[in-house]
């Protein structure tokens, strides 16, 4: 049987200092898979240069000349990490695909662990989950966790907490998600449209770039952009909540009206201020009605928006190659 193919995709922005070592580690991974008789081979490592200005393009060109499996894609301008990842995925051919950052935060040696987890559990997407602190800053790690929890709640998608740029994805699923990803789509949200066989695997991850230079490859503004895109790519929970509040207000106003009319008919002496209750109930009724209608309209709009973003009705996946990988993983254990 033909071997399965593995591709790696690395978006590169101002990462010239790390590229030699990263390619060296990928080369060792290639050798290891071959030596161990793995049913999968690392056939291409795609580096997407996101218009770096630190000489990354020259380093990549040199690496491409030395290693025929290194493929370089150059973007015409700086688009950001996700579009660069999407471009890399759309240039890949592998049955499985690993996305990893260029700054050695994600060590290629862990790819085998990700593959093992995917094969044994029958998964389409395995995220690396940091075992400990990642950013070398309690504030940054804590705020990242808090932010993910908030977005997970808002988006009604608990998997948001597992999202990580070090991920192993089934090739067909990755390419399908990348195909529908527009500039406003959050890639991981798009991946969730195509599979729910997702798991997180704890691995030691450390952001070397920030630990050594105090600078992150993508700054605060990029993180805000990520947050916005994540919400734009989701059916936001508060929309539904707004409709529910509308229903509750409508119900309360109707019940209040019944009570007020009843009091007026049965015990009129109890009504000491005239007009106040009817005014409040009228406002509550129309406020509730408007909230409900607005909630329904926004729900429709949200559904159309997700359709426009490319959420599919269905997608067919072929997992027939997983058995060889699972057998190899069990034999190694």
């Amino acid at each position, binding site marked *: 049987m033909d071997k399965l*193919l593995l591709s790696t995709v690395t978006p590169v922005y101002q990462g010239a200092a790390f590229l030699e070592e990263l390619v060296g580690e990928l080369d060792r991974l290639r050798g290891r898979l071959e030596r161990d008789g793995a049913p999968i081979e690392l*056939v291409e490592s795609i580096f997407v240069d996101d218009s770096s200005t630190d000489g990354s393009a020259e380093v990549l060109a040199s690496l491409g000349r030395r290693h*025929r499996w290194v493929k370089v894609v150059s973007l015409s301008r700086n688009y950001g990490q996700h579009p660069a990842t999407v471009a890399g995925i759309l240039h890949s051919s592998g049955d499985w695909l690993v996305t990893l950052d260029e700054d050695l935060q994600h060590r290629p040696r862990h790819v085998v662990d990700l593959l093992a987890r995917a094969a044994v559990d029958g998964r389409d997407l395995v995220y690396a989950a940091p075992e400990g602190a990642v950013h070398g800053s309690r504030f940054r790690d804590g705020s990242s966790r808090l932010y993910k929890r908030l977005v997970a709640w808002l988006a009604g998608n608990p998997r948001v907490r597992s999202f990580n740029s070090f991920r192993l994805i089934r*090739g*067909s699923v990755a*390419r399908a998600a990348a*195909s529908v990803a527009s500039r406003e789509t959050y890639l991981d949200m798009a991946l969730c449209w195509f599979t729910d066989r997702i798991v997180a695997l704890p691995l030691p991850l450390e952001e070397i770039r920030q630990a050594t230079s105090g600078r992150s490859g993508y700054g605060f503004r990029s993180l805000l952009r990520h947050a916005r895109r994540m919400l734009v790519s989701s059916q936001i929970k508060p929309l539904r909540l707004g409709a529910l509040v509308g229903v509750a207000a409508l119900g309360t106003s109707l019940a209040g009206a019944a009570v007020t009319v009843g009091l007026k008919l049965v015990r009129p002496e109890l009504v000491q201020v005239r007009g106040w209750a009817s005014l409040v109930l009228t406002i509550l009724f129309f406020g509730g009605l408007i909230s409900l209608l607005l909630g329904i309209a926004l729900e429709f709009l949200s559904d159309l928006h997700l359709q426009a973003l490319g959420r599919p009705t269905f997608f*067919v996946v*072929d997992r027939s190659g997983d058995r060889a990988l699972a057998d190899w993983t069990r034999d190694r254990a």
Partner: protein
Amino acid sequence: MILLDETREGRPPRLVSVVGAGLIGSAVVERLESSGRWRRELLPLDWEDGRLQERQLAALAERVADRLAAAAAGARDAAPPRLAVLWSAGRSGFGATAAEAERELASFRRVLETTLRLAEEHPGSRVSFGMISSAGGLFEGQRVVTARSVPAPRRPYGELKLAQEEMLAGLAGGLAWRVYRLTSIYGATGTSPRRGLIPTLILNGIRQRVTAITGSFSTLRDYVWVGDVATYVAADLTGAPAGTSRCVLASAKPSSIFEIRRLIERVVGRPLYLTLSGDATNRADITFAHDADPAGWRTSSLETCVRAIYRGALSASGGAAPGEA
């Protein structure tokens, strides 16, 4: 069959004979004609009757021989006249039967032998032969095909292309030749019944018709714009013929059917209606690496070219894009 004759004051004549004026052959002819120096002559070539085809090729050879002899006599000190023959015929497509492939191989032999005779009879001229082959047919089912990959055809069409390449290498002798192994070529095909996936999806998207897809959404292919091929091949044919070689003209950018569908839906601005066939014969992936690229080969963006086809199809149907007045 089209014979192109270049008219340049004080320069030795160059002739290009394009055998098979389908999508690729026509694009090469148009690219040459766009310079304004080439005159085209359409000559008949029958694909069913072998004897008739031989007579038609003999007539072509006679016409070319006259032109080469006149040029050689007229300019003794000038550079030698050139003749380039391009085989771009493909009567039988990817789904050709063994019988169709055999008939096409016989036609190829006749054209090659005619070219060899011309080269022998006009030693003062520089004669070369170009052949359009199929990387898809030769490497079907292989991914990340490199310059070192070995062809392993899976169907009669691929076997035909390999047999043609071997025949060319075996018979050509001292003739300069080049084989262009093309991946999935797309371009505006008008009303031709043999359209590829991309123009079919665009036309059916405009007309709101159902397209049957043989393959799966995950099937990977390598799409190349016919204009890029025409530019490269035309420059190659009219350049100085040298040696013998094979090259792969690929984009090295795999595209899944799903990606193509999504792209065309975006361009057309309408949903595409599709049915998926259970036929597994067309599901094999075929993708290519960049290391197989020949010097000077450039590819255009898929989206740009899809938009160009869409605009052309709209103009042809007299329609306007959704959202346009």
